[in-house]
């Protein structure tokens, strides 16, 4: 059900028992997943189990003081979101109640109970501009006009999928430009249906699409280790597991800020309040690297912090992905960040244990794997029902207990996602950020994305990447020996390799998210940085062969400047000069 319109309630019931967020009611005439209002205060809840005359409900708000005998009203509709202009630059809780509106309505900084608000402003007027004319043929999902939702994004008004049968078309009977609110009709169809800017969609059901395609364009993130070694595709899926303090949230924030998607949906699922506040305060001030507009103009935030009701935490992931799919239908590339999917899984576990369901592994419900798979399957590169192409990329943070990746949420996630960015507590401890472990991480999109990098950056992109990976692999092996015998016991060429690898780690893989320049690294710069280290590598090995002692090679003055490439704004010139200096200095040694 949607909060935009009040639906008639049917088949009221009576509360029988209350235990935390789980309430059971008797005599309620309801279907599974119907939204109900519980108690005298009308707390929002959802039907999750029906047994005989008893209906079990998960309540999205705190249930203190609610007791047996209080009424339960059924709305007869499943949990839905309001879709339409106004979702960007908004901040919602897990059931799409706008937090700024709630603050005003409640008149307090605390989240009160029983207050409801529609997900989009129903009264705001938008300037509607038709893109079709009377008599034009339209089908499901076809765009009939646009409104400027934010400076960055034109919101496309589409024929709702339920206005027509699949494959059916009809003609536009009337359409006018002008100023409308989201509930007003902007176009009439020949078959009698009307189109407004407002749609509703049940969150647990994927929006229809024509076809899912193989993604071939990278989601460029401006993070060297991601773009350079473990790229994700537009429409791809990725998991970021890591123990606490290893930088999951910073990585997610960096992606939300710099990924070259059209739309960002950021779901803060059971995380810290202060972190969400940081996003709320920072994003309106930060510039979108693509066009200089405020980042919020392309962002929709869902903030269900850890102390907000657990049932709303369970639903916030679905709310997020439904909003993402709606923009995908308009032909946009959407990136969804979910921080963290473990909190979502734990919310499922908590509800499941209150229902006294038979637990699966580590107390998680047996349907955990299925739910995770369903969620990630809603990502992808799609051909939409209206013929446009759009994508939803899903990037989920995972918070494994004790940083142990063998736990069920991480394992079940890894079976589905194709990019794995493993965060490492050891690296984080030595302030190597982003602390993504290059030995454990992988991307299965590498090959299908290489043509893009070859065409848009440099022809030898894949070879350079492979070179870096080889050096890092060799370093890992050598480090094992060094641990036993010390570095000086290694032959000269291996000592040199260690030095090269050190630059790869410290200059290339590390990136300072808090430095104004280094925080975003375009792929061209990523490439140049790598070639600079390779230049040093090639020249150094030539020098070594010519008989120069390894200590002298390592000690040359110019090479530590590699560490400063990241912070250079005019990096091209800097790199050019640096390469020349390294070459000259090394050649002067023999």
């Amino acid at each position, binding site marked *: 059900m949607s909060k935009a319109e009040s639906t008639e309630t049917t088949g009221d019931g009576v509360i029988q028992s209350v235990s935390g967020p789980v309430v059971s009611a008797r005599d309620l005439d309801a279907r599974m997943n119907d939204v109900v209002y519980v108690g005298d205060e009308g707390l929002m809840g959802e039907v999750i189990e029906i047994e005989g005359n008893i209906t079990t409900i998960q309540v999205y708000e705190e249930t203190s003081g609610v007791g047996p005998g209080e009424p339960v009203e059924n709305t007869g509709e499943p949990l839905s979101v309001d879709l339409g202009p106004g979702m960007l630059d908004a901040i919602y809780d897990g059931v799409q109640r706008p937090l700024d509106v709630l603050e005003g309505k409640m008149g307090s*900084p605390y989240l009160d109970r029983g207050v409801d608000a529609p997900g989009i402003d129903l009264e705001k007027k938008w300037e509607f501009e038709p893109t079709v004319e009377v008599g034009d043929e339209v089908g499901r999902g076809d765009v009939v006009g646009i409104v400027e939702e934010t400076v960055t994004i034109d919101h496309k008004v589409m024929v709702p999928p339920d206005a027509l049968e699949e494959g059916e078309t009809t003609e536009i009977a009337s359409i006018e430009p002008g100023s409308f609110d989201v509930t007003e009709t902007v176009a009439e169809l020949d078959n009698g249906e009307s189109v407004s800017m407002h749609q509703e969609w049940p969150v647990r059901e994927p929006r229809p699409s024509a076809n899912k395609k193989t993604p071939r364009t990278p989601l460029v993130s401006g993070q060297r280790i991601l773009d350079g070694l473990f790229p994700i595709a537009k429409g791809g899926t990725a998991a970021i597991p890591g123990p606490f303090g290893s930088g999951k949230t910073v990585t997610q924030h960096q992606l939300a800020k710099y990924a070259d998607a059209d739309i960002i949906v950021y779901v803060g699922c059971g995380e810290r309040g202060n972190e969400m506040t940081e996003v709320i305060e920072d994003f309106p001030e930060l510039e979108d690297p693509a066009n200089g507009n405020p980042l919020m103009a392309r962002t929709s935030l869902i903030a269900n912090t850890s102390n907000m009701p657990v049932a709303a935490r369970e639903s916030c992931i679905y709310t997020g992905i439904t909003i993402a799919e709606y923009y995908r239908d308009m032909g946009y590339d959407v990136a969804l960040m979910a921080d963290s999917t473990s909190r979502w899984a734990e919310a499922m576990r908590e509800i499941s244990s209150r229902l006294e369901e038979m637990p699966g592994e580590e107390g998680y419900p047996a349907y955990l794997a299925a739910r995770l798979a369903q969620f990630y399957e809603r990502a992808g590169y799609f051909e939409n029902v209206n013929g446009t192409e759009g994508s939803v990329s899903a990037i989920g943070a995972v918070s494994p207990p004790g940083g142990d990746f063998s736990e069920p949420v991480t394992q079940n996630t890894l079976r589905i996602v194709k990019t794995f960015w493993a965060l490492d507590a050891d690296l984080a401890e030595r302030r190597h950020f982003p602390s993504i472990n290059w030995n454990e991480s992988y991307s299965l999109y590498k090959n299908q994305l290489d043509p893009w990098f070859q065409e848009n950056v440099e022809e030898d992109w894949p070879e350079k990447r492979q070179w870096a990976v080889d050096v890092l692999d060799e370093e890992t092996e050598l480090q094992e020996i060094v*641990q036993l015998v010390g570095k000086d016991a290694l032959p000269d060429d291996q000592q040199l390799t260690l030095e090269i690898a050190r630059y790869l780690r410290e200059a290339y893989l590390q990136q300072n998210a808090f430095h104004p320049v280094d925080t975003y690294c375009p792929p061209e710069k990523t490439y140049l940085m790598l070639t600079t280290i390779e230049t040093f590598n090639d020249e150094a090995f030539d020098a070594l062969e010519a008989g120069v002692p390894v200590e002298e090679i390592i000690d040359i003055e110019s090479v530590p400047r590699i560490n400063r490439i990241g912070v250079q704004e005019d990096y091209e010139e800097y790199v050019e000069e640096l390469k020349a200096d390294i070459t000259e200095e090394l050649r002067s040694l023999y």
Partner: protein
Amino acid sequence: MKEYQTITEISGPLVYAEVDEAIGYDEIVEIETAQGETLRGQVLESSEGLVAIQVFEGTSGIDQNASVRFLGETMKMPVTEDLLGRVLDGSGRPIDDGPEIVPEERQDIVGAAINPYSREYPEEFIETGVSAIDGMNTLVRGQKLPIFSSSGQPHSQLAMQIARQASVPEEEEGDDDEDGSEFAVIFGAMGITAEEANEFMEDFERTGALERSVVFMNLADDPAVERTVTPRMVLTTAEYLAFEKDYHVLVILTDMTNYCEALREIGAAREEVPGRRGYPGYMYTDLAQLYERAGRIQGRDGSVTQIPILTMPGDDDTHPIPDLTGYITEGQIYVDPDLNSQGLQPPVNVLPSLSRLMDDGIGEGLTRADHGGVSDQMYAAYAEGEDLRDLVNIVGREALSERDNKYLDFADAFETEFVDQGFDTNRELEETLEIGWDLLSMLPKEELNRVDEEFIEEYYREEDDEREVVEAAD
């Protein structure tokens, strides 16, 4: 108010009673035993005709003839500014023989969540005077930064040092602070021993801190179930003082491990499906509802900063209590048994420690422009030195290069000069950073790749004479 004599089952801390009216979830209950003793409890589950009650004081003495009264409201904390200077028990009743407390308000102890939209991002630096914290893991107002410790470690001394020292600059700066926000400490003890409690109390009295403190005492021999309400009482008082009376409140909760044990006890008595290691599956949510009550709110002058202390069973940070805590709090400070046995005071291991809000609370205009770089560089250097220590054990110091030896010296000096300051030394940040530069100057200039060049120019000590004193001292 109706009285029932309908107890059907008593099991552990739980009492089940039959009722013939609707009883709200979380409602407060009074049980009067045959001996005339009154016990308090809370409704844990309410169904038609039957409620489950958790009794704070324990169920001993209750029989089936005891009478049960439902007070028709959820648990409230009477709050007033006069609470400052008072000592209360774990349920918020005064135990210091002082005058009766006349509450200004009675607030629900299950605080509603702060709307993330209404929060203000914390970025005001708190100078604790502890180098390992100020320099490396800076605390800011509105943060929740736990101390991860284990049994037998001096975590209490560290907490007391922070509480004592953090307050001082605030008072001196009184005039900068045009809103005149004052500093208050709220101390919530859950299941600590009487001896530990005495230490805290003596310290409070010695330093005169008690008059701007509120102390809640649930000792080891007090009812375990009461521990589940103590932190809520504490935080309700903290929120009141911070957001209605403009205090900067520092909340110390010790020991969270005892709190979680109490949760587990109730869960077991209710025969719930247990989660990891027998702790209830909702422990994350439960802990979050405590920790998330730290913060700042737009338009209010005060703040709630939390320093929960927890002793990690077996010094294992993957145990559910520290693990779940670490995922909720904004960092953690590790107290390390090895460093403690080396005699470091405070024995803070900075490597696994972290303050997530540090980056936004430091730097130009907040602390000092070079703060971030110095901290990062010391982290990297100390981590490298630590690694080399393992190697030294195998190959000996002579087998290492000159560079490696410098890192080893750095790591030693870092511990003895920087971390080991004593529990009674209050270091200003300026001093902390200067010591940092003294130490970094032990390393060759080219190795300092985390610090901006301009700061190296400004602060790097070119002459080595100062350093040699330290090295000789090792």
